[in-house]
């Protein structure tokens, strides 16, 4: 057993850093981008995060929830969260306005090991709000373009109105050696692109596993079938990387909420390779 050192002189990890909503941008009818700035400059300076990490954001009086930090860290830049209004806390956050104070705890969790994937072709497949963590991966590759091979992005959603980062599509398309494929489950009269489920499109596009790594994020069923499609194309478990959503509370591996199989999603995740995810006894 690890030796317990009694004494509570350290910072209380349950007390959030205070932050202000700097501004917001409606990305869809239910997804809003929040730009949040930590109030204490010393805290802001020390709050360095990697793509894939999350923070627990409080709407004080309503509660707190974990959200992927979908921006890339830069000194002096606010934190960005793409938050879909789907439950109690997210509704509480959506009711706030620029200038309002929120709580931030973090950065927590592990991150996408982007250094490990240098030189490889990067395939990014995001469904719905699952595109939020994928956005930081796309932007990382775009920013460090020369370090990576081909950039192939597949972004799907239930409908055209559910595609989240439409304002960044041009930036992604304009990056050299890049491809952006869009698809929806149901189109509308203005929709000109594919109407097909993501796994089918992945197969159609015949992604090559040679020197490639595939990032997958979206609803559990989308991940399940997309991974199947990728395996069908020859991708091995270590080549498929995902980030998992789980009910979380403390974010620091104490409260037990996110314990799935042998893993605590807030500590060992939320980023897992598919090989690691299959090692977990429970199904996610």
């Amino acid at each position, binding site marked *: *057993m*690890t030796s*317990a*050192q*009694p*004494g*509570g002189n*350290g*910072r*209380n*990890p*349950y*007390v*959030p850093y*205070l932050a202000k909503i700097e501004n917001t941008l409606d990305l869809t009818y239910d997804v809003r981008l929040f730009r949040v700035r930590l109030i204490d400059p010393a805290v802001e300076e020390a709050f360095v995060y990697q793509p894939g990490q999350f923070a627990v954001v*409080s709407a*004080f*009086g*309503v*509660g*707190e*929830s974990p959200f992927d930090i979908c921006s890339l860290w830069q000194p002096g830049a606010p934190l960005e969260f793409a938050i879909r209004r*789907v*439950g*109690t*806390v*997210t509704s509480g956050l959506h009711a706030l306005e620029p200038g309002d*104070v929120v709580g931030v705890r973090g950065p927590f969790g592990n991150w996408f090991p982007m250094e490990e994937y240098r030189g490889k072709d990067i395939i990014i497949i995001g469904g719905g709000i699952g595109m939020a963590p994928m956005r930081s991966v796309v932007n990382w590759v775009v920013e460090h373009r020369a370090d990576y091979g081909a950039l192939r992005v597949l972004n799907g959603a239930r409908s055209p109105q559910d595609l989240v980062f439409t304002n960044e599509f041009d930036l992604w398309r304009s990056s050299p050696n890049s491809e952006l494929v869009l698809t929806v489950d149901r189109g509308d009269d203005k929709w000109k692109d594919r109407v097909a489920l993501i796994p089918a499109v992945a197969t159609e596009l015949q992604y090559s596993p040679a020197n490639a790594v595939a990032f997958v994020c979206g609803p*559990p069923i989308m991940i399940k079938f997309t991974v199947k499609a990728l395996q069908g194309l020859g991708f091995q478990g270590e080549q498929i990387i995902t980030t998992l*959503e*789980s*009910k979380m*509370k*403390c974010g*620091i*591996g*104490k*409260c*037990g*909420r996110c*314990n*799935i*199989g*042998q893993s605590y999603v807030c500590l060992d995740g939320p980023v897992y390779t598919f090989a690691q995810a299959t090692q977990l*006894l*429970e*199904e*996610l």
Partner: protein
Amino acid sequence: MDIITRESLKRWLTTLMDRYQVMAPVLAEGNHLFRAISSTDEIAWDYYNSVVPPKELIFPLTESLFTLEYQNGVPQIQEPVIDRQTVIFGLRPCDARAIAMLDASFMNDPVDVPYARRRALVTLVGWACVRPESPCFCVNIGGAPNGTQGLDVLMTEGTDGYFVEPVTEKGKAVLEGAELKHTDAVPPEPAALPAFSTEGLTERLPEVFLSPMWQQQVEACISCKICTFLCPTCYCFDVRDRRDGEAVERMRCWDSCQGAHFSKIAGGYNPRATKTARWKQFFYHKYLYYPERFGGVIACVGCARCVRKCPVNIDIREVIQDLKEDISA
């Protein structure tokens, strides 16, 4: 070893109450529970074990994490002051071992500060079990009815008083002023408990995760929270906000993986929608996941509260027995 008479023990405790909050087992409406005492008359000297384990004294059922108030429009966070020196008197070795297991998790980086603050102020003075009874099974799971692990002092009832064994420096310090007398006598050996082995169980658990045995064993479960709440090694909690006008209080309170909605996420998806899946989590966390993280220690101390109090007699010893048969098959 040293020995102390019951009367001297009471005198020592009474002086302790000047400096410490003394928590001891009392009889509350027919139930043995740990409560703060103001007189040694309140102590239930003949208790077997408490219904609710003493973990509630360090990890309370409900506690305030902080309050947030606006002062001149500026939000201020205030943490509660935790500064009361406490002696927990009369806890059993199994419960002390369990507290050590909670320590390992809560003190692991990042340190759970509210727990750590309380823990630092607590001294554990335990009583050995001289007459342990089935369904208790501490001996089969790495413990002992007279074990000292996790305790600061161990006392064992003998014919002439209590044998006193200080275990830590903290224990020695709290005993100052106690009228101890040396004796050549030795503490009585506890009565034997029925034996069964749990050796090798942890290693084989991954193989039997999908066994149909689980559904059969757990079929009667009503998904209440008795097993987890009465378990001294369980420590899941919920974090919730409470509004009081403009002020906000963030609290944490006990929660349980046995609750139907424990793992449900916003939007409705629930990875543990069945009681079988939930009970497996209870078992696997203790017998596999915790040992994997914390040096192979099984997070079960054999106190058998879950066995005694389960409304439908889901008996963890039976599950272990069935598993062993499953594994050797």
